[in-house]
């Protein structure tokens, strides 16, 4: 229970003791910390700074109503509607005075109470009454239903639970868990993935379709790897005569392409002297042509 301490809010002396004194004042209406309390609070005055806390402790209008009923130890089936409505309205007014943001649910409940009250004040003919339920019936049903789950929530909170009442027991394992093996990939899988990505891309990029030779691309990677260290490399070292004419051509095309993309630099210190290649050091080189999108003029239409 979240609110027992609030029953102990002292009645301030400036409150008028004659107001809001419920008719059930004679009977013991609550147990507070084990002590029977036989006197109702004189009114509903709560220090403003406490009210906000007080109201936040309620889970809604049903909860507030239940509190008002339980505080007087009343049977839920036998609500003194006039009193309860009055008290409820007093809380609503307090909330409004304090300009607390009043949840719509509270106002709805106030309206419901007012409606029930007015219906009960209206005289009705006997045959209508026999068909119509007591106007409080639906409210009582809702209150009872809510109270069941309020109690259920408390029961759940009492259940022994992990991390509060019990903990999982575990022991260390010294031996290594079996190393989960790295995923295996079949070449076919990768090719299928490429097929998919290519065809997918083709669907929204109709142009840019052009011929491409794989080997020059791969050779570009090889050349870049060879000059990876940043030092100059003899141009001739990039070529492998044993690859034959085609291989040499491919390497040459790759070098040209890398130069075009500004990825490598070729330096010749004197005319007809040896050529040296290194990875591009100067970012400003061929800045524009290196852009992927600049090749449109060279594309097939």
């Amino acid at each position, binding site marked *: 229970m979240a609110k027992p301490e609030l029953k102990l809010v002292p009645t301030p002396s400036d409150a008028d003791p004659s107001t809001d004194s419920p008719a059930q004042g004679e009977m013991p209406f609550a147990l507070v910390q084990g002590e029977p309390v036989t006197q109702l609070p004189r009114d509903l005055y709560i220090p403003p700074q406490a009210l906000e806390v007080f109201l936040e402790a309620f889970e809604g*209008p049903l909860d507030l109503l239940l509190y008002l009923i339980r505080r007087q130890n009343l049977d839920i089936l036998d609500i003194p509607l006039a009193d309860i409505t009055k008290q409820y309205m007093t809380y609503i007014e307090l909330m409004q005075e304090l300009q607390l943001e009043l949840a719509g649910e509270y106002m709805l409940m106030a309206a419901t109470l007012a409606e029930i009250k007015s219906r009960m004040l209206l005289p009705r003919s006997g045959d209508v009454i026999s068909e119509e339920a007591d106007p409080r019936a639906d409210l009582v049903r809702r209150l*009872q239903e809510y109270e069941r789950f*309020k109690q*259920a*929530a408390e*029961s759940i909170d009492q259940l022994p639970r992990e*991390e509060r*009442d019990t903990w999982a027991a575990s022991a260390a394992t010294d031996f290594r868990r079996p190393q989960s093996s790295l995923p295996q990939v079949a070449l076919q899988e990768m090719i299928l993935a490429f097929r998919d990505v290519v065809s997918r891309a083709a669907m929204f990029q109709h142009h840019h379709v052009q011929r491409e030779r794989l080997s020059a691309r791969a050779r570009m990677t090889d050349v870049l790897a060879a000059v990876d260290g940043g030092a100059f490399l003899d141009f001739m070292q990039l070529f492998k005569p044993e690859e034959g004419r085609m291989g040499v051509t491919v390497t040459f095309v790759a070098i040209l392409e890398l130069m075009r993309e500004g990825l490598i630099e070729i330096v010749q210190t004197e005319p007809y002297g040896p050529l040296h290649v290194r990875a591009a050091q100067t970012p400003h080189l061929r800045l524009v042509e290196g852009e992927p999108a600049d090749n449109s003029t060279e594309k097939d239409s």
Partner: protein
Amino acid sequence: MSDHHIRNVIEASLLAAGKPMSISEIGELFDEDGRPDKAQIQTALDALGSEYGDRGIELRETASGWRIQIRQSYAREISRLWPERPQKYSRALLETLALIAYRQPITRAEIESVRGVAVNPNIVKTLMEREWIRVVGHRDVPGHPELLGTTRSFLDYFGLRTIDELPPLAVIKQMIDLNPQLSLPVAEAPDTDAVVVAADTGEDDGPA
């Protein structure tokens, strides 16, 4: 396979796993040519549970299987292992959880109609993140609202084997039939009238 070996494998596996294990999961740990059957494992579990009788640990069956856990009577000492206090859950969260647990499957709107207040989305989020509740379907009404239900983790966390082990819901007090009095003008005695509630007594009093 000796009973002794079966017991030791069970104890070691439950402690190594640190979470509940079903009997068949336990069985699969044994070498194939010496695998005890379920009855043998159950016997060994019972024996192990008795051995723990006077210890700080206990063997417990929850929704996901058997686990070894700290006995509640040692919670005071063991909780000192962690300086921070265990999380306390708000009443709003517990009430929402209770409605989902006892009334599942249930929509947010149905929770609202019982609690009288809107369901706080953060509460549902927290319960989902804790894996205590999940969406179990959609109600076949306009908008197809989500139906919420509890999970196995929820049962494990609260040490329950099934949802039926939740504490029973309070029984709604039988309404006294006071129809004769209602024929009197109600306004004359508004404070003393008993209330007649129709058609609510056949309701379920426990979790489904």
